[in-house]
C-alpha cells in the first residue's frame, strides 16, 4: 500500500498548500479587519472608515435577480490602460470634470457584506458607487429604468424587471407611486404600474452603494480643504 499512500499524501500536500495559503489563512485574517478612524489633524475630517454599509435587505434581491451577470462592483486602479478611475459618474464626484480620479476599491469597502457581488461580467456600467450617480434621479425615474430600460436608453440590452412591478387599475387620482412611462411601454388605458416591496428594496440597495469614501491617511488635500 506504500505507493497508494504516497499518492494520497502527494495529493494532500500539493493541493493542501494552496488551499491553506490562498483560501483559509487569508479568509481568516481578513475577518480581523476593523474600521479605521479619520484623524482631524491629518485628514481634515472625522468619523469612521468605512462608514455605514450597504442595504442588505435589498442586496438579497440584487443577488436573486442575477444582476451580477452584467454589473460589476469593483473600481480598478488606473494603470495598464484601465479607465475606471476616470469614468464619468463612477465615483462620488458627479461633476463633469471631477477634481481627482476615483479611488480603487479596497477590501474594507466590503467588510459589512457577507459576499461582495464583484460581478461576472461588465456588460453594463459598474455599480460600486451607483448611489451617488442615482442621487440626482427621483425614485420614480430609477423604477422606470428597472421596469423598461429601453424606455430610458433605446440601445440598452438590460432586461426589464417587470415581474417586480404590479399592474393595477387606476383608482381615484391614481397611486402617487405610479410609474410615468412612454406610450410604448405603458400598460393599457385605465391601468397603472406600481413597484412591489421587492422593487423598493432593490432601489434602496442601489442608493446605498457608496464605496468612494476617502481612506484615512490618504485623503487628498483638495478633499480635505472642501470638507
Amino acid at each position, binding site marked *: 500500500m506504500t505507493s497508494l499512500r504516497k499518492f494520497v499524501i502527494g*495529493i494532500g500536500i500539493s493541493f493542501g498548500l494552496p488551499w491553506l495559503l490562498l483560501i483559509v489563512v487569508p479568509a481568516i485574517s481578513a475577518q480581523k479587519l476593523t474600521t479605521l478612524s479619520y484623524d482631524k489633524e491629518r485628514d481634515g475630517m472625522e468619523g469612521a472608515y468605512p462608514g455605514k454599509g450597504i442595504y442588505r435587505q435589498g442586496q438579497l434581491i440584487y443577488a436573486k435577480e*442575477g444582476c451580477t451577470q452584467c454589473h460589476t462592483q469593483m473600481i480598478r486602479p488606473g494603470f495598464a490602460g484601465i479607465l475606471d478611475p476616470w469614468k464619468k459618474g463612477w465615483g462620488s464626484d458627479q461633476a463633469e470634470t471631477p477634481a481627482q480620479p476615483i479611488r480603487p476599491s479596497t477590501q474594507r469597502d466590503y467588510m459589512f457584506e*457577507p459576499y461582495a457581488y464583484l460581478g461576472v461580467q461588465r456588460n453594463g456600467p459598474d455599480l460600486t458607487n451607483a448611489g451617488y450617480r442615482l442621487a440626482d434621479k427621483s425614485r420614480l425615474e430609477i423604477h422606470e429604468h428597472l421596469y423598461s430600460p429601453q424606455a430610458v436608453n433605446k440601445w440598452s*440590452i438590460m432586461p426589464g424587471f417587470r415581474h417586480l412591478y404590479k399592474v393595477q387599475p387606476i383608482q381615484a387620482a391614481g397611486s402617487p407611486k405610479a410609474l410615468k412611462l412612454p406610450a410604448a411601454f405603458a400598460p393599457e388605458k385605465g391601468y397603472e404600474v406600481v413597484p412591489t416591496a421587492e422593487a423598493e428594496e432593490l432601489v434602496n440597495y442601489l442608493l446605498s452603494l457608496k464605496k468612494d469614501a476617502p481612506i484615512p491617511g490618504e485623503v487628498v488635500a483638495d478633499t480635505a480643504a472642501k470638507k
Partner: protein
Amino acid sequence: METTETTSLEDSLRRAAIDRSVKGPVLFLFANAALWLLAATVLGLVSSVKLYAPEFLDSDWTWFLNYARVQPAHMNALIYGWAMQAGLGTMIWLMARRTGQELKGASTVIIATIFWNIAVTLGLLSILFHGSTSMQWLEFPKYLWPIFTISFLMIATRLVGMFARAHKEGEGFMITSWYILGACFWFPWIYLTANLFLHCFGSSLNGASAAGINAWYVNTLILLFFVPVGLGACYYYLPKITGQPIYSSQLASLGFWGLAFLGGWTGIQKYMGGPLPAWMPAIGGAVMILLLVPAGIVALNFHISTEGRHGLIETSPTLRFVFVGSFCYLALSAVGALLGTFWTGSLLQFTYAEYGFHILAIYGFFSMTMFGAIYYIVPRLSGCEWLSARLIRSHFWFSVYGTAALVVCMLLGGLAQGASINAPGNWNLPFVGSIINARGYLIGRTVAWVFILWSNAWFFIHLVLMVLGLGRRSVAPTLLHHEESHAPATA
C-alpha cells in the same frame, strides 16, 4: 500458441464481466447527461439572443427567461447536468477497465445518480423561478450542496475502492487511474471548501474574500476536475486506438504532478486590480502561465505517442473527438494564461472572453473528450453498434465548427468590449459603445449555438437509441469510412 489463446479468451471473459458490472450505472449516467446537454444548449441559445435582443421571448409570462436567469441556468446545466455526469460515467468505466475490477454496488451508483439529477432539476427550476445566489457556478440554492456532495462521494468511494483492490493485487500505477483518482479527491475538497465558506461561514467572512473564494472555485473546478478527467480519458484512448504505447511515463508523471501542484493556486486573477491583496491575483496569473509547462509536456507526450498514426482519425470516431479535445487542452491553457496576466487580462477582464475560456474548457476540451469516450464505451455496454456513421460525422463537424466559432467570437467580442470600456475617448459617454462593438460577435455566438444544438439533438437521439439497445446488430464497429472493409475491432 495455445496458452495465448486461452489467456485472450480469459481476458475477453473478464472484460465482459467488468462491462456487465458497470453497464447499468454508466449508461444511466450518459443518458441523463445527454438530456441535460440538450437542455443546456437550448438555454445557451436563448441567453445568447438576449444579449442583443432583450425583447426576444419577453412576454409577461416568460419573465423568468431574462439573461440574468437564463445564463446561470445554462452554465449550471452544462456543468452539473452534462459535464459532471458524463465525466462520472467515463470515470467509472475507465477505472473498472484500468484496474481490471468489477464495479461492486451498482445500485448505489444508480441511486446517487438519481439524487444528483433531482438536485440538478431543483437547482435549475430554482434559478429560473425563484432566483440565484449570484455566486458564479454555485447559483443553485444553498440547500442542494449536501446532496451533490453525498452523491459524488457515493460514486467516488466505489472508484477508490476499485483502485485499492487492484492495488492489493499488485497492479501498478497507470496514468489514467492517477488522474481519475485525483479527480475523486479534488472535487469533494474544492466543492466542500467553496460551499462551507460561502454558505455556512459566509456571514462572518469579509465580502471580498468570499468573492475571491468563488473565483478560485470556478478555476479550480476546471483545472482539478474537468482537466484530470479529460486527460485521463485521453491517456487511455490515444494509445488504445493507435496501438502505440504512451511514449514516456516520466513525462506523463511530470504532467500529472505539475498540474497537481499548480492547479490549486489559480482563480483570483479574475478580480485582479480588485479589493483583494494584490499577491493573490498575481499568484493566480503567474501560475496560469506556469501551467503551460505541464500542458506542453502532456501535449508533447501525446504527439510522440501517436506519431505516424494520426491518419486513424479518418476512421475512428473516438480518436477524432479525443484528438480535438487534447488539442483544446493546449488552447485552453494558452487562453487561460492570456486572461490571467495583467498585461492582456486588464483588457479582457469582465468581458465575454471569460465565457469563451469557460466554453473552451468545458465544451472544446472536456465535452469533446467525453464524446469520444462515449462513442467507445456505449457499444461495449449496450451490445449493439452505433446506427449511423453519418450521424457521428455530423455530430463531430457541427460540434467542432460550433465550438470554434463560439470561442473565437467570444475572445474577439471580449476584446472589442474591453477596448471600448477602456478607450480614453469614452470616459464620459454612456455605456453604448461596448454594446455596439460586441453586437456582431454576439450574433456569431447565437449562430454557433444553433450549430451545437443541431449536433447535440442528433447525438441525444442516437445515444438514447443505443441505450435502449436499438443499435445496429453487428460484429463490426461503426467506423467513419471504409465501412465495408474488415477493420480491426477498435472504434
